[in-house]
């Protein structure tokens, strides 16, 4: 399989009075054709900035470093000018966001907004675009699509608005859909509807997907591969079943053990990750997770570990330098 998207050494920094904010600081990953990649991490891990960087939607004072490469379908997006990039966005890569209300224009009907998306990328007439808009609304599961096309965003519920956003994003058959926390603002039964819709459309349209989320459960249900981010870097990546089934990086492991699973009771104590995420103005010198890691040893504070291969996974931890890590930390129970 060839990679549809290959991101190499992505560094997206934001200038500030107190020095550069290194939000994304050396990120590598690939998305293969037809597969879904989950990018997971907590606030401040850099996952959203990574997505915006791929779309080249990072505004001043942010900038992507010169040596970063974003190779999509054989072309390096970092070398395209804004006009060429306009064609890539929407035609080839589309993006949906967490809050559809702020992404939709309140003064146009949802039908007009989809029609506009169609016309901005394809040379079709107004009436043809309107027909296509209704088709899209049907595709994303909105009943009475012809009537709903005349509704304004505020007349729709949160779940329906997210369906409209997906409709706009898919209007031009992109090869890659980037979804940034698409269900985070939705209730769980509505989230289930949207996840099912996305799964269904992905299969029907044969596109690749990059799903950014903080919810490990969503990754487990939706994704083939996963990238775990921490403090602007990738700490672990690989097929979801392997990374979640046998996490090699201590952060991935701690994250998985700190979530109460359905049916767990207070009798089982939750794993605690002590302390807080460090500041992007001043990342720790060695491994960025070292100050919070139960397994840390001297080398961790000195030198940053690269991604080491462990079977089909890769883990940026010195314990994986020679392959699969073993043994439990001395202080797992202490918190």
């Amino acid at each position, binding site marked *: 399989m060839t990679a549809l998207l290959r991101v190499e050494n992505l560094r997206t920094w934001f200038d500030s009075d107190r020095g550069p904010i290194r939000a994304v600081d050396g990120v590598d990953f690939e998305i293969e054709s037809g597969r879904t990649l989950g990018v997971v991490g907590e606030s401040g891990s850099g996952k959203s900035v990574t997505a915006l960087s791929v779309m080249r939607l990072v505004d001043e004072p942010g900038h992507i470093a010169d040596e970063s490469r974003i190779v999509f379908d054989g072309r390096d997006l970092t070398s395209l000018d804004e006009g060429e990039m306009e064609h890539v966005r929407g035609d080839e890569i589309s993006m949906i966001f967490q809050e559809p209300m702020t992404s939709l224009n309140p003064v146009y009907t949802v039908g007009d907004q989809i029609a506009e998306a169609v016309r901005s990328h394809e040379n079709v007439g107004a009436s043809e675009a309107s027909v296509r808009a209704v088709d899209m609304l049907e595709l994303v599961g909105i*009943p009475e699509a012809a009537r709903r096309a005349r509704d304004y965003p505020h007349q729709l519920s949160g779940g329906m608005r997210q369906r409209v956003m997906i409709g706009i994003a898919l209007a031009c058959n992109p090869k890659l859909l980037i979804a940034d926390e698409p269900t985070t603002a939705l*209730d769980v*039964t509505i989230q289930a509807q949207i996840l099912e819709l996305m799964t269904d459309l992905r299969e029907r349209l044969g596109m690749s997907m990059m799903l950014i989320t903080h919810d490990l*459960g969503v990754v487990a249900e939706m994704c083939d591969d996963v990238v775990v981010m921490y403090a602007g870097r990738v700490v672990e990546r690989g097929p979801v*079943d392997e990374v979640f089934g046998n996490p090699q990086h201590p952060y991935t492991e701690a994250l998985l053990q*700190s*979530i*109460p*699973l359905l049916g767990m009771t207070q009798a089982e104590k939750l794993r605690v990750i002590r302390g807080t995420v460090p500041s992007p103005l001043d990342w720790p010198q060695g491994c960025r997770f070292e100050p919070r890691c139960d397994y840390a040893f001297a080398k961790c504070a000195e030198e940053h570990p690269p991604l080491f291969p462990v079977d089909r996974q890769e883990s940026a931890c010195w314990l994986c330098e020679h392959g699969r890590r073993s043994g439990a930390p001395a202080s797992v129970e202490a918190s």
Partner: protein
Amino acid sequence: MLALRARPPLGRSRVGRGVVSDETFLLDARGVKKYFPVRRGLLRRTVAHVQAVDGVDLQVRAGETVGLVGESGCGKSTLGRTLLRLLEPTAGQILFDGTDLTKLSRRELKRARSDMQIIFQDSVGSLDPRMKVRELVGEGLAVHGVKRSARRARVEETLERVGLPSYTLGRYAHQFSGGQRQRIGIARALVLQPKLIVADEPVSALDVSIQSQVLNLLVELKQDFGLTYVFVAHDLAVVGYISDRIAVMYLGKIVEFANAADLFAKPLHPYTQALLSAIPTPVVGAKRKRIVLSGDVPSPMNPPSGCRFRTRCPLAQPICAEIEPPLEQHGDGHLAACHFAGTLIPEPFKSPHGVEA
């Protein structure tokens, strides 16, 4: 549009349908309703009511944690606040430690408040940005007349107990991370040594690594101080983790109320079944068939007749539109409000993507 009827006062016997009768409860709420008027037009006339909480019975034993769970608009937060009379109930009685809170004067209520506290989700909005931690945590003590000299020690003790070092006393809320701010919120509630704490989505805004710190802290504090919690949250896994018993709410009503273990093992109400199946879980090989409900939650201004869940229920029959199912016993304290309680939704259940207009 809607006539508000006061519920007839309950007799001494305290026997309600499906309610354990021979126990005393720290909190015993009966027939609680909270309607919000919807005003329109120049004269701001009331044209309708949002029936946020519409007739809820809830008993909480001393020392237990009762979880209130449901989706947005189900009334769980409104109920949590109404239980403390932070919102004035439209109807019903709320017995706290034997006293009916709805009958208390403002002054009496203020005194009672030192025994019942609340923790909010939004630790930014609920902490005054101009107050230092010392004042934030000591505020309740000052309101309840604790002398300045005694306050300081209590504040420091409480801060230490929630895991904030004493050098933070002179800092402002914005100087803390989200998890630390939530600890300040917990300290504010704890400092008065209350019997009951209503925790309203206390970990929803936190990252998972911080969420587990706060959950563990709440569990420890409960054990150490013999606290009773009403824990309001939308995340069923979190509620299940912390609660002894769980009330599942839908459109202003409790649809199921059971021990946490029973609820997960044997959900009786179809809404609970759907809710449980819809939660994605990060366990390899756990990918199971989801029950995907069609449609959105109807408006609480104009809820469906009969059973409120029937418009989305895969099991709905004609009777559901006509007769509202009462919350009834289905064995050992397991309550459910469904004509077909215990019937399993056939899996894999997949509704059309359709949404009722």
